[in-house]
């Protein structure tokens, strides 16, 4: 009985080379064939170019470059290339590197998308005392829903209120909710405007500013958190100086980092500033923000915040899994005496005490709120 040829046995694995060679030969034949077809079509097209030109619709490259919905044009590539050539001539290696990086990311960058209703709900649970800001976000989300591409934008927001109410934590959660990158500037410890807008290349330690860095990713709507803006140090180069133009949408469209020297569209950045005493801010700067006073949460809100902080702690701390999934009511009530900022530290200490006593459940006496600085002010050192 004749045995079937191995060349046609699909289950045979001992002759893979033969099968592969067939595939390669076949694809090459198809490629040659396609090339021949294309050559014929191109020959006819070039031969009858004059006839075809009358049928050619007017469109394409002669028209301006269009943006996809939900994206913005960050810079002019011609300006960027000219600056790159100049930087090469001047041997400014870091400038060339930054410009090449910007060019590789493309001219168009994505805008922020409106947060989902689930994310908004989670924010409301975690930060119930930020309801005014969340209402603003809700209105802006509705606006984004009717705009092409669903681009979401928020005006610069100034969050003022007593220390420890969760202003910085809220900004972190907001950036995660909007899925945009976050950069944080501690204004109190910043020395000069270089931090935001870069310094001139003639300086030996010149670098691009935070705004330029924030724009060097796929999103043009990064979130810049200006922490403690009311504590900006007095300087010849005020830290907040560039904000006067950056917070105005029209001037922010042509923001120029002093180091890079290429105009970029920074008008889609999301700005959040936090402070304790807004009255210390320059009125001209203050007027550029939409201001929200964040109150200390009430008792019911504190319970919700305590639970939210505990959930976050369980998600982050590796040891948290051995403890109970939910806090008891007594422990939660004890926690509400702490500020939202203190809660995380107090909870960690409470867990440490429970672990020392070899317990997997927290007791109210584990929660000890030990304030370094009480309502009466800082404890003095030395003679009273």
């Amino acid at each position, binding site marked *: 009985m004749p045995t079937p040829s191995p060349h046609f046995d699909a289950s045979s694995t001992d002759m893979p080379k033969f099968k592969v060679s067939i595939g390669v030969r076949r694809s090459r034949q198809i490629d*040659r*064939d*396609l090339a*021949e*077809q*294309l*050559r*014929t*079509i*191109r*020959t*006819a*097209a070039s*031969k*009858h170019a004059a*006839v*075809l030109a009358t*049928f*050619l*619709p007017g*469109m*394409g*490259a*002669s*028209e301006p*470059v*269009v*943006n*996809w919905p939900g*994206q913005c044009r960050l810079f002019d590539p011609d300006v960027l290339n000219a600056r790159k050539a100049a930087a090469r001539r001047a041997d400014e290696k870091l400038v060339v590197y930054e410009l090449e990086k910007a060019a*590789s*990311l*493309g*001219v*168009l*960058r*994505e805008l922020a998308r409106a947060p989902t209703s689930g994310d908004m709900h989670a924010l409301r649970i975690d930060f119930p005392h930020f309801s005014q800001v969340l209402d603003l976000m809700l209105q802006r989300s509705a606006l984004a829903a009717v705009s092409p591409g669903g681009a979401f934008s928020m005006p610069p927001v100034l969050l003022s209120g007593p220390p420890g109410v969760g202003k910085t934590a809220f900004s972190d959660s907001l950036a995660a909710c909007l899925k945009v990158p976050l950069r944080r500037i501690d204004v109190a410890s910043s020395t000069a405007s270089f931090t935001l807008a870069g310094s001139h290349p003639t300086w030996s330690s010149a670098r691009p500013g935070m705004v330029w860095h924030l724009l060097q990713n*796929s999103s043009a709507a990064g979130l810049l958190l200006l922490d403690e803006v009311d504590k900006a140090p007095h300087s010849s180069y005020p830290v907040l100086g560039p904000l006067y133009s950056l917070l105005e949408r029209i001037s922010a469209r042509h923001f120029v980092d002093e180091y890079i020297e290429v105009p970029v569209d920074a008008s889609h950045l999301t700005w959040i500033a936090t402070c304790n005493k807004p009255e210390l801010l320059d009125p001209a700067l203050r007027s550029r923000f939409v201001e929200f006073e964040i109150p200390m949460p009430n008792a019911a809100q504190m319970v919700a915040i305590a639970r939210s902080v505990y959930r976050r702690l369980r998600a982050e701390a590796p040891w948290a899994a051995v403890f109970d999934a939910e806090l008891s009511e007594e422990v939660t009530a004890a926690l509400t005496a702490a500020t939202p900022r203190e809660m995380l530290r107090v909870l960690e200490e409470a867990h440490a005490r429970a672990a020392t006593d070899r317990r997997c459940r927290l007791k109210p006496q584990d929660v000890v709120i030990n304030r370094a600085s009480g309502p009466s002010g800082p404890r003095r050192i030395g003679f009273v």
Partner: protein
Amino acid sequence: MEHPNKVAPSNVPTAWQRVLDTYALKYQRATGKAFEKPFVALMNGLPFSTVERDTVAEGFARKTVTALLHTCQQCGRSGRRRRHTRRYTVMCAACFSARALRADIAALLDDDAPTEAGFRPEVAWHEHELPPRIRGVIPSQIWRQTDIPGVGPVRYLGKADVQALAVWLTKLACLVDEETATAGSEAKVGAG
């Protein structure tokens, strides 16, 4: 001399008729007799032998079928089997280019048509989504250009662009048809 393949099917393409004639003449010279009935038939555009119980005639018919399967039915040059609108044809790449271009245009416009649910799945075609025969001939000034974050500059055509280009492409297909028909007739004259 009597035509050796007088009973060949009437719907045979002209370029194939010459192949049939050649083999029929060879058969007549070898055996001293002509085929009494069609020795090759066409089914779905492809030839097959109709000779049975005659080893010599069957051999000639088989060789004829093999030759036909490698002969462009339009110009007579070397071709290969191709599928077009649910039928098979044997054509060379040049002669098939106009048909293929027309099929590409039809597929592209059909792709643009709304589905049963009224949903339009595409609003624009990236350069590499277009068939190579169309992509390769569209003039550079026609392309729209944009920049996709993380991808870089891309060329594309919108829905309205494709519809506007359809007339130009169809005219091009007609011109390619004319060109290949002229080249085919010249080849036949040369071969004759």
